[in-house]
């Protein structure tokens, strides 16, 4: 009973998927096999199958169309990542881009010159710029000492030991 049930439910699917079941003939092709089997069952199924044959091809073409559309719309990120630029490719591109820039500038009649760089005389600017800044100890030392000195300087006063105004002997 279970077998009949599954067959009726999957009247298209069973032959489409090519899965053999208890009704599959070993030596007959699937199309005729399907019609013969269903003809034995009832007229309804026969009529359904006549309509089902073109419908099936429609579904298949629709399916393949969907697959094609999906394939064209899909961006394969994994495949993109796999393509790493090699060193010589970088160099080639640098050359190519420089050449293009020269061409464009020549067309515009503008002289191509590199601006003077700020850190031109520093050989490895990245190392110097990435170096550790002042240590916390030094920072606190300097801050405290300068504030102490600032305080000390505010205390500077003129201490007069003699009279600033000296009376002259005016006769």
């Amino acid at each position, binding site marked *: 009973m279970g077998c009949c049930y599954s067959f009726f439910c999957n009247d298209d699917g069973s032959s489409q998927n090519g899965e053999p079941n208890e009704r599959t003939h070993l030596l007959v092709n699937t199309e005729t096999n399907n019609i013969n089997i269903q003809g034995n069952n009832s007229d309804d199924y026969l009529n359904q199958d006549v309509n089902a044959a073109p419908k099936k091809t429609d579904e298949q073409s629709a399916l393949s169309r969907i697959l094609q559309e999906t394939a064209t719309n899909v961006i394969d990120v994994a495949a993109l990542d796999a393509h790493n630029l090699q060193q010589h490719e970088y160099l080639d591109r640098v050359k190519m881009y420089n050449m293009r820039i020269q061409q464009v500038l020549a067309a515009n009649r503008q002289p191509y010159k590199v601006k003077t760089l700020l850190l031109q005389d520093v050989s490895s600017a990245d190392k110097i710029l990435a170096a550790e800044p002042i240590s916390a100890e030094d920072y606190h030392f*300097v801050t405290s000492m300068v504030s102490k000195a600032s305080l000390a300087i505010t*205390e500077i006063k003129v201490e007069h030991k003699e009279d600033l105004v000296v009376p002259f002997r005016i006769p």
Partner: protein
Amino acid sequence: MEKPLERVMEEILNTTDVFGCVFADHQGLCLGVKGRASTESAGVIGAIAEEASKLEPNSRPPVIVLESENKMCIIQRNGTITGAIYKLI
């Protein structure tokens, strides 16, 4: 008179690796110098602190470090005075 400042400069020089210090007022006038530092550098130090503080006017005055291979000069402004401490690395 300037005894408190002298004492502070003594304290600075007694710190390990420190070999000089100089203090300048807001106009670059030298207020005090001790150790291997020159009074003539006071004006330059004041100007450096002045210019550096213009980078971030709303922040606290920055600590500026000038570094050579084996020495460093740390400059900071506090109020109207600027201090510079010379130190071995």
